[in-house]
């Protein structure tokens, strides 16, 4: 990996990474899932859930990217995941055990039918 040697290099790198993300978001059939994996999420079963999602999405032939992320702040509803279907706004689900994970794949990801446990995002983030 080459070192970043100037602010210009860094700006180019950022644009490249940004456009990769945009590309991913615009991809017509890619499902994106983020699993909240701070210590507290893992303690509630987020690691098993993440493995389950990766395996099952693969088995069920759904093209998806499952990544880990940090604390989303919804301690009362761990494990929590954020699911982004192609060309749709992200939805956060709470209380996602393996059974709920299965339900989310079958109902929401396959059929766009929502399931219980939706957590509306209740914060604003800084504009980039």
């Amino acid at each position, binding site marked *: 990996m080459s070192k970043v040697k100037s602010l210009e290099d860094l700006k180019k790198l*950022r644009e490249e990474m940004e456009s990769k993300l945009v590309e991913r978001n615009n991809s017509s059939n890619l499902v994106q899932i983020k699993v909240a994996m701070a210590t507290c999420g893992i303690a509630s079963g987020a690691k098993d859930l993440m493995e389950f999602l990766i395996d099952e999405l693969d088995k069920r032939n759904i093209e998806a990217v499952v990544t880990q992320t940090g604390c989303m702040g919804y301690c009362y509803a761990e494990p929590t995941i954020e699911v982004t279907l192609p060309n749709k706004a992200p939805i956060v689900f709470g209380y996602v055990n393996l059974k709920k994970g299965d339900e989310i794949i079958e109902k929401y990801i396959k059929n766009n*039918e929502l399931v219980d446990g939706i957590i509306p995002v209740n914060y604003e983030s800084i504009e980039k």
Partner: protein
Amino acid sequence: MAKIKKHLLVCGGTSCNALQNEVIASNLKETIREKGLNEEVQVMMTGCFGLCEKGPIVKVLHDNTIYIGVKPEDLKEIVEEHIINGNKVTRLLLDSDPNLKVHSKKQLRIALRNCGFIDPENINEYFACDGYLALGKVLESKDPQKTIDIIKKSGLRGRGGGGFPTGLKWEITSKSQADQKYVVCNADEGDPGAFMDRSILEGDPHSVIEAMAIAGYAIGATKGLVYIRAEYPLAIERLKTAINQSREFGFLGTDIMGSGFDFDIELRYGAGAFVCGEETALIHSMEGNRGEPTFKPPFPSVSGYLGKPTNVNNVETFANIPVIINKGAEWFAAIGTEKSKGTKVFALAGKINNVGLIEVPMGITLREIIYEIGGGIKDGKKFKAVQTGGPSGGCLTEVHLDTPIDYDNLIAAGSMMGSGGMIVMDEDDCMVSIAKYYLDFTVEESCGKCTPCRIGNKRLYEILEKITLGKGTLEDLDKLKNLSHVIKDTSLCGLGQTSPNPVLSTLENFWDEYIEHVTVKKCRSNQCKALMQYIIDPEQCVGCTACARNCPVNAITGERKLAHLINQDICIKCGACMEKCKFNAISIK
């Protein structure tokens, strides 16, 4: 079944519940069915939207429209106009209320901006979120003083609890002359119930690394140290990964981004002693000595780690730095109150519906935090107090619900910001026991250097114990107060100077409860076991023997089908009998 095309979300939060959100949801479903849309439009109840004062809330998902104050008679219009014809019902839109437009949501994430958004182990995702851009800008400016001025102007104050102006600290350290200076990140999060620093390090470690390098450039330090408790293994692992990635890209190491500036970071592990959150104790611990505080001055900014000028900042403080550089001091200073700028992360815990990690602008009220973000008190109980500032802080009560939260107001109210633990208590919590709990913690954590702290806190604890056992007297209350003041006045470091705060604050706010404990020997929350008795009402008791069979100490006697009796001398007050009784015959006196 046809694929569902549209979703309507109805807020299912506690306070919307009170506004008949269930009626809204079922009427909405009915209306959808009437229009023959139930195959393609789904109605769903969700968690709280955090817009409680404007409920009930209906959100149309596919075009991100939020309707507020929705009444059953509005539903037909929403379905016909919006869902069928595609025209928004403007009179109900959230945006139609100009007051709400700006602050429609109570939380603003600055320090937590990337937590739960990026993959903390993937530096590329941090790049996409302006990662290391602030460091690049600072290095390109070639003007350390300019960076210090930006931080000074932003009004950022230390998020570890004390609230010392960060820019000023940097300036003092920058002016100290030495061949070597250090930047230290204090990640020794010790307050019971506080976990914001851990969450930041686990969710966005690069922001802290970037900020430490910026601080290094500003004050003229080439070495950074993170003092982190070994109890945080995941935070340590992610931080190590991030440091390695950062080195690979050249944001740590020599000649960073071609600027000629060298900076690198090492980790130092703490064994989880509360006192080591105090900066002088922390420095001694890093040096391999006992974690004991020493007298200030000299301040670490003059003589710290290995006798060199050292700038110690908290994790959350650092997490704010890159954003301030990128967005400007004015932007940051526009958020918050006159003397407390920006936001604060709180770990909201205790008897509250939505336990969670929240970040709110300074100046928000407790009422907004508890009833809107937190979704109210659990099980509909009555609010009693909020403990802020951990073992060094105090309690805020009903009278403080509408006080804007900032550093100075919390101190005026007899508490403090602390690192941001916020523990909510309800009518079932005994305030004497709460004070005792914190003193138990301080007695355990006192380093023992100063006699008033080492012995005085132990005596405070013993008096509180005596009161909860029903053996306290009115004189004891005077003793508590006097001893508390002596400990505060005669201890060296922050731990001793603040450890009696939970006692003083509960004495001040809950004097009646103390009086009840010592005079009529009663604990109104039924938490002090010595002050309560389980009693069987002979009128209600049918003699089913369930209580006697479940009593672990065989304290209950009585014949079948006759009223039973609890022998108070044997009873350990576990409450098992009351749980098992199906006839409500057992009560607490």
